[in-house]
């Protein structure tokens, strides 16, 4: 892994590139916005660390306020990094199936309040068996498919059956429900509100059915960055899962109350033909799933023409001349795939390095 540690006080122009920057003013604005929104509501934020991959950033949001005091993670290895980093409440918003991984999850449950998603009775029985053998209690949340067509139960009856089983099994504490949502494209606010409420209502319908069967549901964990403002006043939703909002990405540009905090700093290494400049960052470092190109910050007339493995092709109409050695800033179209390709965040404020933070959960896809 890379160990690049520019000293605090280093100006941007002295940084070796490419590097992944966090604009501290921007991320603090995003954290504050969430804290203000959820300070007095029943519903709280549970920040998703699959996006941040760093306990420090999770602690920053928890300290700023408006949270449940814990995080959600996508993988057991990510949860390990968070617990090692001092987080004591982790929801793995995902199914954990392989026996080895369940053992690993139960080890964590000795040191933190661990909760995990379920959508299958056989898996639930296995969780119970291992938890019992390890002498721990695992919290479980039934995953409900509301729009992703991914994991999660599809029918209310199946959810009630699974809840009954969870409530009866030793080593298991039935805690509630969870779901993810997706809305493609760039929805307007009206569409966002209507669709968000509709998806969350599917969780609330299941909550009612399970409670109707006499089983208490204390957690309804749902939502995304694009529904963060809907859950706040939807009775029954107890927590919202937001990830992208902290660092932001161009694909969530329609949520413009959040500021772009993750940026890539690159350098022009060649100007081979008039109007064309080649930069030192490519697909490897940037991530462009589906061929989505990044955008250039603050350079009028400069566009991204292509991404190669290790290079970016920029074109300028002349309004901003580009010369070899010039630096440029990019906004990625996608956020968590990007962070997963870096070992360090260079945290900057007003163009000066303030801190360098490792990204300890990078590569933790296990």
């Amino acid at each position, binding site marked *: 892994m890379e160990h690049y540690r520019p000293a605090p006080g280093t100006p941007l122009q002295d940084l070796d590139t490419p590097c992944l920057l966090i604009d501290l003013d921007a991320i603090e604005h995003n954290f504050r916005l969430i804290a203000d929104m959820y300070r007095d509501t029943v519903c709280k934020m549970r920040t998703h660390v699959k996006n941040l991959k760093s306990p420090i950033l999770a602690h920053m949001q928890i300290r700023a306020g408006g949270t449940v005091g814990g995080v959600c993670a996508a993988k057991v290895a990510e949860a390990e990094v968070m617990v090692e980093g001092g987080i004591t409440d982790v929801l793995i918003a995902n199914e954990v199936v392989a026996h080895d991984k369940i053992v690993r999850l139960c080890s964590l449950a000795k040191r933190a309040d661990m909760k995990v998603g379920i959508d299958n009775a056989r898996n639930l029985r296995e969780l119970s068996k291992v938890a019992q053998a390890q002498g721990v209690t695992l919290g479980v949340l039934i995953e409900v498919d509301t729009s992703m*067509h991914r994991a999660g139960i599809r029918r209310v009856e199946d959810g009630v059956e699974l809840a009954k089983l969870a409530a009866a099994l030793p080593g298991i504490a039935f805690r509630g429900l969870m779901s993810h949502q997706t809305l493609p494209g760039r929805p307007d606010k009206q569409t966002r509100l209507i669709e968000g409420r509709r998806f969350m209502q599917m969780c609330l319908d299941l909550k009612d059915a399970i409670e109707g069967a006499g089983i208490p549901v204390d957690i309804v964990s749902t939502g995304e960055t694009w529904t963060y403002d809907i859950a706040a006043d939807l009775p029954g939703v107890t927590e919202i899962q937001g990830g992208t909002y902290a660092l932001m990405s161009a694909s969530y540009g329609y949520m413009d109350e959040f500021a772009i905090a993750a940026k890539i700093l690159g350098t022009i290494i*060649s100007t081979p033909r008039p109007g064309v400049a080649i930069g030192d960052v490519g697909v490897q470092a940037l991530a462009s799933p589906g*061929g989505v190109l990044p955008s250039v910050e603050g350079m009028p007339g400069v566009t991204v023409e292509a991404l190669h493995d290790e290079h970016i092709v920029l074109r300028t109409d002349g309004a901003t001349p580009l010369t070899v050695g010039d630096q440029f800033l990019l906004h990625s179209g996608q956020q968590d795939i990007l962070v997963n390709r870096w070992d360090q965040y260079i945290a900057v404020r007003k163009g000066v390095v303030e801190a360098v933070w490792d990204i300890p959960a990078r590569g933790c*896809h296990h």
Partner: protein
Amino acid sequence: MRRRMEAGMERPIFKPLGTPVAQLDTPALVVDLALVEHNIATLHAFFQQREAKVRPHVTAHRCPALAHKQLATGGTVGGISVITVGEAEVFADHGFDNIFVANEVVTQQKIRRLCALARRASVIVAVDNPANVRDLSAAAEAHGVTLQVVVDMHTRLQGCGVEPGPPAVELARVVHAAPHLEFAGLMSYAGAILATDPAALAAESRQCIQQVLDTRELLERSGLPIRMVSVGNTSNYEIAGAMAGVTEVPAGAYVLLDACYGPYRPQFAPAARIMTTVTSRPEPGTAIADAGQKAVSVDLGLPVASDLDGATVASLSAEHCRLRLEGAADETLRLGDTFWLTPYDIGTCTNLYDYIHAVRDGHLEAVWRVAARGQYR
């Protein structure tokens, strides 16, 4: 097997050597050694019979253990090629002493690192700009080293490089005249040429390479000695390697191959795959597995579920793969089962892992570090 966990490292549950592959923690990057050895033997045998040699382009896998296997096989120039100074540093630390940075190195910080590296390895670097040549020369003088320099030429891909012919010759003269630099020759990166028709592949490859060879001739006629012409890649190594005047081919993808190259290069076998586990069967016809975009890159295309009849990769989200299942696969695939994904592009995929699980006959034989992963600088 116990391993030290470092910050920012992949955290698989390590298994003892000899473990059956199906018991590895997933998602895992698994390399079949017999196939790797077949791929290396096939390409290197071609170069053992030729004037031109292969210079393994190790950015394709970033793994020093694989690179050592390549150099040990013969038919090589005895060195490797990389893209970044950081990759060059990592490979130098793993015992490689002849390293071609096939890229422009322009900032003062990187030029200083390059010169420091030149004290412990023979370093070749590319240029396409006279101001950069002057900076390299001044830094080489200050560090008391000599850098070997090749002129990078634009022949096909929109990227770095001067135009062939007189502009390249002019830049070569600037390099030749610069103290502490040694003009080594020419390079052009034309990208993979994917064509199933051998005549079309040969025509397009020759069209690119001939521009470099014509420039070589101009240089020689003007009295500039030239010892290195670096062109071609896995897509056309046999064409590049057979053209008189080409001295080396920086091929890399042939070692592990991928689903993109596979159909075009049948002499090689896809040797690297991702093993993944089914974590949900939410409804008939659908399976969800634990390898998403963070475990299999999809920048250039979707992976292929290579061994599962009736299974198609429908999509990958950040953490999940969604399979569409038909027929027997739909009936038999259960929660906890593992299956294989062949990545579409291996370069962006090895860059996601810290460890390669090397297997032979279905059992773990070695765990290798992808030591140069993430070396973008």
